């Protein structure tokens, strides 16, 4: 797709090309005599009039020399060019018809006090081989000031106008929405924290020995029921029914109880005597105190 260009610019491009072709025809003999490789480039110049400070001017150079592709050795740097102009960028671009162009952008960086002619500078691009070069001719254009030199002071044409007052925005609804949002966030956060604390407390209360401790309060210390309560707590901790022979599995699963290994072993021996043996154990463990000690160890592992 061929990009559409503004008519004025297209006209001036045709004029520029025609001028360049004419110049090249007239000066070809001389050029050949001077240097066989320096050629005038085909250039699309910006509009030559009607510019003011801040305008960006685009100069496009066709990268072809005598119908062959021209590879520039280097692109011109971005720099200030005299009083009026600054070269902002130099980029390679390919048009829809497949031609490669070097696009240079200039910006007018100064404002004249009256209508002034300013020229884009003439310059030359060297090829990568160094054997060829393209010449870009100087391009004059007119630049005008934005304001008259002296303000009249009449009407609104004062020397310096006061700042515009910023528009009044109704902040009350925004503030209300903000408070509602913040309040909702705080409420949500509080609810979440509350749920977290409640869940942790409930989980802690449901730990085997926490539960056992509660149940032991309702039973007689040393009764068969109280021994069974502790057995179920050990089973729940290990994940299976614990016997004296499988105590190692318990300590592997819950190493915090290692500290009470001797008492735990004694518990299982005494329990076997009580439930399966012929006589109740001598000096039975005080089960509530034992369970409290187990609960302390259990708690030490809770997060």
């Amino acid at each position, binding site marked *: 797709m061929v990009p559409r260009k503004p008519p004025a610019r297209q006209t001036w491009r045709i004029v520029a090309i025609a001028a360049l072709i004419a110049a090249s025809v007239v000066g070809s003999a001389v050029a050949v005599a001077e240097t066989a490789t320096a050629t005038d480039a085909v250039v699309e110049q910006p509009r030559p009039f009607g510019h003011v400070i801040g305008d960006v001017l685009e100069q496009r150079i066709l990268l072809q020399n005598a119908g062959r592709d021209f590879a520039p050795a280097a692109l011109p740097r971005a720099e200030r060019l005299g009083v009026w102009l600054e070269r902002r960028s130099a980029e390679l671009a390919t048009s829809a018809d497949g031609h490669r162009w070097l696009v240079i952008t200039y910006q007018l960086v100064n404002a004249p006090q009256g209508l002034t002619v300013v020229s884009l500078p003439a310059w030359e691009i060297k090829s990568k081989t160094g054997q060829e070069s393209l010449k870009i001719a100087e391009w004059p254009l007119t630049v005008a000031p934005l304001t008259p030199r002296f303000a009249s002071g009449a009407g609104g044409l004062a020397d310096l106008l006061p700042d515009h007052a910023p528009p009044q925005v109704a902040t009350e609804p925004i503030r209300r929405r903000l408070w509602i949002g913040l309040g909702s966030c705080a409420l949500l956060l509080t609810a979440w924290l509350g749920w977290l604390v409640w869940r942790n407390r409930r989980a802690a209360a449901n730990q085997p020995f926490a539960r056992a401790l509660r149940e032991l309060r309702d039973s007689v210390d040393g009764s*068969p029921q109280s*021994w*069974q309560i502790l*057995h*179920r707590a050990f*089973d729940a901790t290990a994940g*299976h*029914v614990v*016997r*004296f*022979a499988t105590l190692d599995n318990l300590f592997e699963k819950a190493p915090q109880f290692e500290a009470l290994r001797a008492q735990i072993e004694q518990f299982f021996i005494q*329990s*076997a005597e*009580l*439930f*399966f*043996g*012929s006589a109740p154990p001598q000096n039975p463990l005080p089960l509530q105190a034992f369970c409290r000690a187990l609960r302390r160890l259990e708690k030490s592992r809770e997060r």
Partner: protein
Amino acid sequence: MISEEQLQDWRGAALRVEQEVGKAIIGQQGTVRLLNVALFGRGHVLLEGDVGVGKTTILRAFARAVGGDFERVEGTIDLMPGDLVYHTYVDADGKPHIEPGPLLRHGERLTTFFFNEINRARPQVQSLLLRAMAERTVSAFNKEWRFPHMTVFADRNRIEKEETFELASAARDRFMFELRMTTPTDPAIRRSLVFNPDFHDVDELLQRVSPGILPWNELNRIGSAIQHAVKASEALERYVMDLWDATHAPQKFGVHVDGVDMNKLVLAGASPRGMMMLMRAARVVAWLDGRTHLVPDDIQAVVAATLGHRIFFTPVYELRRAQIADALVKQILDSVPTPR
């Protein structure tokens, strides 16, 4: 009435049987202990295992240590019940003779009857043997023959299935234990079995075992005395009843086996005979441990061997018995609480 001291003496003799068998058999302490338990629990044992793991050797060593008369029959597809009961031949004078067969030959002195590869024998033969096991009697020649001291050790090759007759569930229920014998895993024992020439000649190896350690004709009396001497507490009875319930409805005790629908797994749990066998065996375990009361460990020591083959699965799971049965028994033991 057997005194406590006599029981202690017998215990010493029982432990000595294990020691003697241990001179010929290495790496099978568990199997030796359970064979001893069956002997004093007056139960029969079906030994199952891979080819060449030493099933026959261990049973021969045991029979030698126990003493009494020993008889051995090889199960074959053409073996008929009559072959166990009588033997016919024509003598040098051309006269036909009928003599008692291997089962009757020793009369009441028969202590160990070893049936090798029982699953190769026809069901008719198995039936005869099962009656002999259950009642310790056989009818032949118009009279009843009694073998009150007989213990049957049978073995079964679990790899070969061709030309074999699988034992019926009722038949398997007659055995106190169904033991699975596996190759030892301890590297030192494995090396010794392979490289030590002492283990290569079975007959010579068995000579190491002192013969006739037990007064075999008193086994029934001592077995009965053990059963009466070892007591079970209420808590233990509750535990055993819970285990029994768990064999019927394991899901009620939270038992779960991976990949199995527990509601559809069990067709029938352990039989009353199975539970009797369990208690008989557990009491012997307690006695061998020097106790006069049972603890759950005694029960657990024999649950797998006693109940593993007595829980019947629905057909869809029966084919996977080998994988499921062990896991189920372990889960039951892990899940049924005690003391309760």
